[in-house]
């Protein structure tokens, strides 16, 4: 009367699409590993610590890795205070209707394509930076950092705002009942409770920023050197993504040049993935509490 039919066609269709999705990431990881193995055989650890990159001679990735981190940090230093400040105003001081409007506008702005920011950067930002800091070339680390900062500003604002909103209403009421004024409520009750959520969310968006290619590529120049001195942000440089964007089609998919580029991609993949994972873990833990 009741017969079992466990593996019907529907289940097989759903299962296969699921396994396609899951296997994509595995295949990409496998691709990065296999295509970059030769360069690790050739250079060993020197690939990660070497400071010189001459196609056909020596491949050292350190300048690109360092500049990637530097540009991302710069962008964060610029975008985080602005984003958090805006989030606090929107979440704690604005009436509901205006809050929703601000949030909608920010979400819209977060969708502006990177290439459009790149155009803005090339036309406006590089010349401005050049004039203000009296440089020979406006294409420099600072320009890239500022541009990336503006790009991630809406994202940082919306995710921090989300984190602030998840703080229970009771916290605010408790603090108000103790006789604290509005600013003190935010400082003592809301921000500490939302801190982890904000941190996690910021890490997630940082991992996104690290992988941004086009806009950075257009404004950073193309010098494969660690800036000297190392904190000199007024010099032209090269991030991992800009290097990949510029040289991948020249490398034609074979030889050590290609392997070295994929090696760079692997490094970027691991850095950005690690960042996203830590952020994800923090956010999830926060949700469980």
């Amino acid at each position, binding site marked *: 009367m009741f017969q079992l039919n466990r593996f*019907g066609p529907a*289940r097989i*269709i*759903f299962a*296969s*699409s*699921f396994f396609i*999705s*899951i296997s*994509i*990431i595995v295949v*990409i990881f496998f691709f*990065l590993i296999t295509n970059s193995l030769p360069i690790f055989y050739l250079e060993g650890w020197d690939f990660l610590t070497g400071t010189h990159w001459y196609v056909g001679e020596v491949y050292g990735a350190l300048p690109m890795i360092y500049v990637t981190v530097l540009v991302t940090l710069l962008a964060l230093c610029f975008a985080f205070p*602005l984003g*958090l*400040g*805006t989030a606090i*105003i*929107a979440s704690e001081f604005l009436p509901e209707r205006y809050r929703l409007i601000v949030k909608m506008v920010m979400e*819209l*702005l977060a*969708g*502006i*394509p*990177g*290439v*459009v920011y*790149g*155009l*803005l950067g*090339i*036309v*406006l930002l590089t010349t401005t930076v050049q004039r203000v800091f009296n440089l020979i070339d406006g294409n420099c680390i600072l320009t890239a950092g500022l541009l990336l900062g*503006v790009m991630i500003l*809406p994202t940082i604002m919306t995710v921090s705002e989300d984190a602030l909103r998840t703080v229970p209403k009771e916290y605010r009421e408790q603090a108000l009942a103790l006789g604290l*004024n509005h*600013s*003190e409520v935010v*400082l003592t009750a809301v921000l500490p409770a939302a801190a982890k959520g904000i941190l996690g969310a910021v890490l997630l968006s940082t991992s*996104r920023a*690290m*992988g*941004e*290619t*086009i806009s950075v590529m*257009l404004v950073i120049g193309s010098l494969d050197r660690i800036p000297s001195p190392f904190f000199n942000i007024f010099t032209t440089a090269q991030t991992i*993504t800009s290097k*990949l*964007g510029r040289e*991948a089609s020249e490398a034609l*998919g*074979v030889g050590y040049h290609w392997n070295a*580029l994929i090696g760079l*991609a692997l490094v*970027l*993949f691991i850095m*950005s*993935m690690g960042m996203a*994972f830590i952020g*994800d873990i923090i956010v999830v833990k926060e949700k469980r509490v």
Partner: protein
Amino acid sequence: MIRRAKGVIFFSICAIATLIAVSLLFVIVGVIFSKGISAFSVTFLTEESKNFGQTGGIFFQILGTIILITSAGILSLPIALGTAVYQTEYLWPSFRRAASIVLYALNGVPTIIFGLFGYAVFGLLLNVGVSWVSGTFILAIMILPTLTVSIKEAIDSIPVKYRESGLSLGFSKWKLIRVIIIPHSFFGIVTGLLLGLARAAGETAAIMFTATVFSGVNVPRSFLEPITTLQTHILVLAQEALNPQARTNAWGAALALVMIVFFISIVSMFIRSRIRLEAER
């Protein structure tokens, strides 16, 4: 008195940050619109580009972007739907968290890596070269997690009572999915699709050396032909920084691209607010 002053200082710092942020973003949007509008004209939107994009219009670029994101959406949607349904309905509960992590990981992959991967797979392995089909596949993979996560959230928010009612009527799993799960997550599916399309429309790095060429192409006549898009058009024109005519055209193309992305996002926001209204009933 000191307490009050502290409060005022804190508020003013936040307010100044807000002012800077908001005015920055206003300037950006203002620049895009004012510079773009001056390039806009009927002929600009309806003509093909001439002389390597420096003169002429962007008609085929607009068409190319729309064709590319539509085909990517069509390819990605069934797989995302299947993945989300399998994950919520069939997969053992203890594996669900792990599956989510994998999908989040896919979401975090820098887009240039998709481009490299696509170049290796389609350009070298399958030897289809720079083509529409490579772009479709790469963008479909790129937006897959966006769609899946959004559909999964919609399914998770279906009230348990609907599920229970369906089961207590004796629906099989397939019927439950077809009659209850998919119709009741319909708006979530549409929102996810639109979010994915908006992301795909703004993406350049993933397709610049796999799907698009700069000039000499109108509409691809087969899947194996290259395509031309707004994104790559802007990218190339932007690097011609010294030619004022090229730059004007770049601004026009940028405005067109921004308007496409904004349009898709606004529609998705509108639908999302509809979902909230439904949920409150």
